[in-house]
């Protein structure tokens, strides 16, 4: 179980990487999450989580070009690995199963979409 379990923030981060495609590096991921989730995320949190996900094998990374705007440093561009995709899928399915078990009558908001 432990191997595939994703934390909420990890899940969002993986989704952001997937959405950004070729442009998924630290700063861009931070901005994507800030925009979509509307919450403040620090750069260090993104870096720590991304690197941990890389260690777990959910992300793969390669270095891009050096640029002066980055003080001569390379971009580390992430991509969701196959394990990552499985984990996302598993998380999504888990949610779907749980949602389906909710009877519409017990809910105030409209569940039909």
């Amino acid at each position, binding site marked *: 179980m432990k191997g595939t379990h994703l934390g909420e923030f990890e899940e969002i981060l993986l989704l952001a990487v997937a959405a950004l495609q070729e442009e998924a*590096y*630290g*700063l861009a991921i931070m901005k994507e999450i800030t925009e979509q989730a509307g919450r403040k995320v*620090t*750069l*260090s*949190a993104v*870096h*720590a989580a991304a*690197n*941990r996900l890389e260690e777990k094998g959910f992300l793969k990374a390669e*270095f891009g070009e050096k640029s*002066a*705007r*980055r*003080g001569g*440093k*390379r*971009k*580390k561009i992430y991509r969701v690995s196959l394990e990552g995709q499985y984990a996302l899928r598993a998380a999504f399915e888990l949610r779907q199963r749980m949602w389906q078990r909710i009877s519409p009558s017990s809910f105030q908001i409209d569940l039909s979409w």
Partner: protein
Amino acid sequence: MVEDPKYYEPPRRLLRLLRWFCAEHFLDEVEGDLWELFQEEVERYGEARARRRFYGLTVRYFRPYFFDRNHLSFQTIITPDMIRHFFKLAFRQLRRQRLYALINISGFALGLAACILIGLFLNHELSYDNFFEGEKNLYRVTISFDVEGRNGHSAVMSTPVARRMQEDIPEVLHAARLAPGMYDAGTNQVRRPNELENRYEDGFTYADSAFLTMFDFPLIEGNRAHQLRDPYTMLLTERKAKALFGSENPVGQQLVLNNSEDNAYTITGVLADLPSNTHFQFDYVLAMSSNEASKQDNWGYNNFLTYAELAPGTDPEVVEGKIKDMFMANHDNFRSMMEAGNRIEPVLQPIRDVHLHSSDIGGYWQHGNFQYIYLFGGVALFILLLAGINFVNLSTARSSLRALETGMRRVLGSMWRQLMAQFLVESVLLSFLALMLAVLLATAVLPFFNELIGRDLQLPWTDPRWYLLIFGSALGLGLLVGAYPAVFLSGYEPLKVLKGYLRSGRSASRFRSQLVVFQFTVAVALVAGSLVVREQLNYLQHQNLGFDKEQLLIVEGTYILDQPEVFREQLQQVPAVRSVSMSGYVPVEGYFRNGVSTWRTGSTDESEHVPLEKWYIDQEYLSTLGMEFVAGRDFSREFLTDSAAIILNEQAVKELGLKEPVGTRISSYTYMDPQTGEIYHEDYTVIGVVKDFHFESLRSDIQGLSLALGGGAINTLVRLSTEEVERGIEAVEAVWSDLAPGQPFRYQFLDEQYQRMYAFEQKAGSVMSVLTGLAIFVACLGLFALATFIAQQRQHEVGIRKVLGASTSEIVILLTKHFVLLVLIAILLATPLAWWLSNNWLADFAYRIDVQWWVFVVAGGLALLLAVFTMSYQAVRSAWMNPVDTIRLGE
């Protein structure tokens, strides 16, 4: 070519910090993203704000996940086991090197104990008046002046200043006057209306009702809003309430002051006892409205300490300017003095500065002096520094003994950092042991210290900051003194050490010598300084004052007698009494003083009017005090015309510019009619000139003085014959209790009162002497240990020299001459330093000694003697050792 767009560089120091703690494999990504983010933030917020934000961004990386484990992580390199191991080693070192441990610990302990006690004292001194609500807006109004070559600073204001400030200056929220020492607020006979026996009490002051609004002294009984409004109401402190009323509630009760039953004061409230850290000193507060003189708008009647509360955020300088305008508009004398080109400035003194920054302001209450704050604090730190130097010197000197250990450890894989940690643990352990000793020492010595400085200080055991402070300083001390030896010891090249190439480096030994020179420079300068202080105090006590202060009894408060003349006559019958005089003016601080404008009769030129002290005395005053005449004669009961006669001192003659003083007519101001503004004065004929005598502390010059008949029997001065002082006092008291039954007999000796003027310097002098003793002791401790070590190291050499025929004295010289040279250099350096410092201190005194050369000879000689004595013990011991033992030991 496309020109490179300009990029903003993030704060370089933060990047360097990041590179230091952050692991290599994160750096490209983290640093790059941070750069990029910084560019965007500069564009969005501007560079300054972006730089501030960058700090927060970077610091967030300071968490274990990003750390460079090879280089930072203590968990893996320094394990708890290892720390336990370090402690074990440190204790072993202490046990094995008992002498050195003892010297280091006792040096540190003495230094720390001195710092704790002095720190306690300084903390108390600096905390004066910091507890009032809104103390930042509270000020005392003072005047700094420079008038006709006389400059000074005064805290007494005239009657209307407080009221006008409050009415005319919008920034002044409240202003209140305090008047200790006048009318009913002098020293008093106190009793309850139904009692007969009086008690003698002091600590009275008048106060305006706004005083308690401004200064939130806690009120134990009574309603704050209604205090001090009605005439003849008063407050007193809790301890006085207990003493006078026991367990009764004093509110509503009355007190009779000086037997005037018609004007008994009704108590309306009880104040908590004043804390020790306030410059206010009173036990009884009387409503200002009971004092008629306080109600008249007399701009020349300077008797009121005046305090002001400004609106929050007001610049005091603005208010100072407005006070000046107020003086210009209302105070004629002020205006004419300003127009004559004199400088007079109102100064608002923050309430917290009153205690330490009033040494130039005369006043009713004794204050501290900030110079001594620096002096004591500095000296205490120096003692600690000297102890620290001992540690550094001993550790580096003995490093060769541990070099082998260090080399071995390195070969076995110990890292530089671990070695550093090991040595630092040793020094920190040492400083903590010293701390414990120091706290014990400070606790034991505190009562004596309190007595010495006249305070009642306690170690703040209940204050968490105190623990933080002492543990923090012990840790800091340990790390600080341990740093150099640790670097030094752990820096040995392991291979060289193990191969035996060790030379205890030339540069290290030179550094050691420099430190010894520094220690002795400090010690010699302190000794010389203390000697100068002692000499000056001695000089003050034996200075010819112009009168005879010995065996002169001052019976205070004789104005309560119905017939003072009977008292005088009866005293003159007492065989032990040589002569008797009655006057409120005594030539020592703490008695009546005034300043009365005086001029040659007929002179209308305002600039020829000079302020003179005007004392009212009787015909026996000058002969009783033993003052000398330069010209003319004393007052005499045979001349009835003497009621219009006046005697001047030499300074007054000079200030008035009189050529032939005797026979000249002079006038002196008496009072101004508040309605008409007319100035009344009295005319006198000068009948004599008395030689200048000192009637104030020798810190100030002798001022112009005029003496006239009158004034009544405020105090009675009794000259006793030398042989019968004890019996004389008894006889005088017997006469007193006969004439004034039920009244306490209060007396002072003039010479004791005189000593009291220098009480503060006396205390400071004693504290300095003790600190000096400690400093020189610590310096000698270090020298002793160094000498011991050197003697041990060279015992082989000494043995061989002895075999070859060297005498004991030659060997002693051999072992001590280097250090003697160092001490001589120190004396050379200390002499100009101490000379400069002493002259700075002496500059405060108008009457002072010149710094004598012998002071430096004595200080230097003492240091040299102590140094030689300290070293000789070891030197002689090794010179007397049997060479067979020492040489064989060396094999």
